[in-house]
C-alpha cells in the first residue's frame, strides 16, 4: 500500500514537473531556434532571481552529451543563465545543434534541469523532449500540413501500403473519427465515421477545417485534435468486422 501511495505521489509530481515547461515553437528540429519557458513555482528554485540551465542530449538512447554552455556543476557559465520574465518564470533560447555541438542526425532528444549557479539547489530533470527529424520518414498516418493552427485546413492520410498490421492492410469502407481538445486538454467535440476519400488504391484522406466540422464559439482555443481511421475487415465467413487503427494526436501551434 505504501509503495502504491509513493508511486501515485511520484507520478503526480512528474506530471507537475512537465506542466511547468513550455516550448516555442511547440515542435522543433535540432536546427530550429527554440525558447523554453520554465515556471519554477513549487520547486527548490522558487523565489530565486538567478537560475541556470543544465542540459543533456539523447537521454536513454545513447550518444548523449552535456550542453556546451553548462559550465561546471559548482559554477554554471553565464551563457547558461535563464532570463527572468516574471516571478518564478524564466526563458532560455537555444538551437539544438549549437547547444550540444552535435549534428541533426545525432540529436534524438534532450533534457534539462534548472539550478543555482553553485548547484546547491535544483529542479527535477525535465526530459525527454524529442527533436523533429530533418529526414522525412514515411509512416502509415500523416497530416498535411505538418504544422498548423486551429484555423487551418488539415488533411489526414492513411497510407495503407505502409500499414504494419495485417488488419489495417486489409481495411475497407475506410472512415475517420476526429476529436478536438480544448486548451485544458479536455475533449471539446468529435465527429465520427466520416467517409475518407480514396485518393489511390492504397491511400485514403480526409480534409477539414475545424469550424466547418464543429461549432467553435468565439475565443475558444483548441490545443490539439486526434484522428483515427476505422473500417471493416472480412471475417472467415465473409461477414464484415469493424476494425480501428490507432489514435493519432496532432498539436495546434500558435502562429505570430
Amino acid at each position: 500500500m505504501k509503495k502504491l501511495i509513493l508511486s501515485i505521489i511520484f507520478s503526480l509530481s512528474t506530471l507537475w514537473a512537465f506542466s511547468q515547461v513550455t516550448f516555442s515553437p511547440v515542435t522543433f528540429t535540432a536546427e530550429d531556434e527554440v525558447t523554453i519557458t520554465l515556471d519554477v513555482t513549487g520547486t527548490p528554485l522558487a523565489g530565486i532571481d538567478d537560475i541556470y540551465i543544465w542540459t543533456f542530449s539523447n537521454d536513454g538512447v545513447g550518444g548523449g552529451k552535456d550542453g556546451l554552455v553548462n559550465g561546471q556543476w559548482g559554477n554554471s557559465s553565464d551563457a547558461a543563465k535563464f532570463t527572468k520574465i516574471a516571478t518564478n518564470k524564466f526563458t532560455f533560447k537555444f538551437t539544438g545543434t549549437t547547444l550540444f555541438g552535435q549534428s541533426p542526425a545525432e540529436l534524438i532528444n534532450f533534457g534539462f534541469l534548472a539550478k543555482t549557479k553553485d548547484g546547491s539547489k535544483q529542479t527535477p530533470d525535465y526530459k525527454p523532449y524529442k527533436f523533429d527529424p530533418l529526414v522525412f520518414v514515411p509512416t502509415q498516418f500523416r497530416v498535411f500540413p505538418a504544422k498548423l493552427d486551429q484555423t487551418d485546413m488539415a488533411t489526414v492520410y492513411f497510407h495503407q501500403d505502409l500499414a504494419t498490421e495485417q488488419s489495417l492492410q486489409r481495411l475497407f469502407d475506410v472512415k475517420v473519427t476526429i476529436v478536438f481538445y480544448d486548451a485544458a486538454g479536455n475533449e471539446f467535440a468529435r465527429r465520427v465515421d466520416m467517409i475518407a476519400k480514396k485518393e489511390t488504391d492504397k491511400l485514403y484522406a480526409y480534409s477539414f477545417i475545424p469550424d466547418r466540422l464543429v461549432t467553435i464559439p468565439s475565443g475558444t482555443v483548441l490545443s490539439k485534435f486526434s484522428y483515427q481511421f476505422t473500417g471493416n475487415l472480412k471475417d472467415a465467413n465473409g461477414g464484415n468486422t469493424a476494425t480501428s487503427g490507432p489514435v493519432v494526436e496532432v498539436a495546434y501551434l500558435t502562429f505570430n
Partner: protein
Amino acid sequence: MKALKYLLIALCTVAFFGCKPEKFGPITSNVAVVKQLQGTWGLTKVVQVDQDAKTKGFPYKELDITNVYAYKDLVIALQLDALGNPSTFTITNGNAPKIVDLTSGNWSVDQNLAPTTIALKNGTVTNALSLGSYTGLSSGKLYLVRNKSINGKVILSYQYEFTKK
C-alpha cells in the same frame, strides 16, 4: 607627319568624349499595377504550401484544396479613388472559408510602382497579403499569398489565384 599627329589627337578626343553612359529605357513599359488591381476578382484556386517541408526538402510540399470547400464562392472587389489610389474593398465569402478576417474596409499597397504587399484595413484590424507575379494581371489573373509564421519564419502559406470577373 604633323597632320598624322593632329589626326591622332582628334581621334583620341572624339573617342574620349564619345564614351559616355548611355541611358537605357525600361526593359518593359511601366506597368500600372495598382490600376490593374482594381476590379472584382473571383477566387479560382487555393493551394496550401507547407513551407517547413519545402525548407527541409520533404515530400508532400503542396496541396490543392480548392474543391474541399466552396472556395470559388469568394469574391474580392478592390476600388480606386478618383486619383487612382487604392480606396475601399469588399470581400464576399459566400460559403467559402474565410481567407482573411475582414470583409470590408480600405486597402493599400506598400509601394505604388512595384507593390509587394496589399494591406486590408478596417479600424485597428489589418490583414496583409503578399502579391504574387504581376504577369497574370494583364490577362485577368491575380495571385495573392497569405503567409503564417512563427518568430518571423514562414511555416505555412496559402496561394490564392483570382480571376477577374
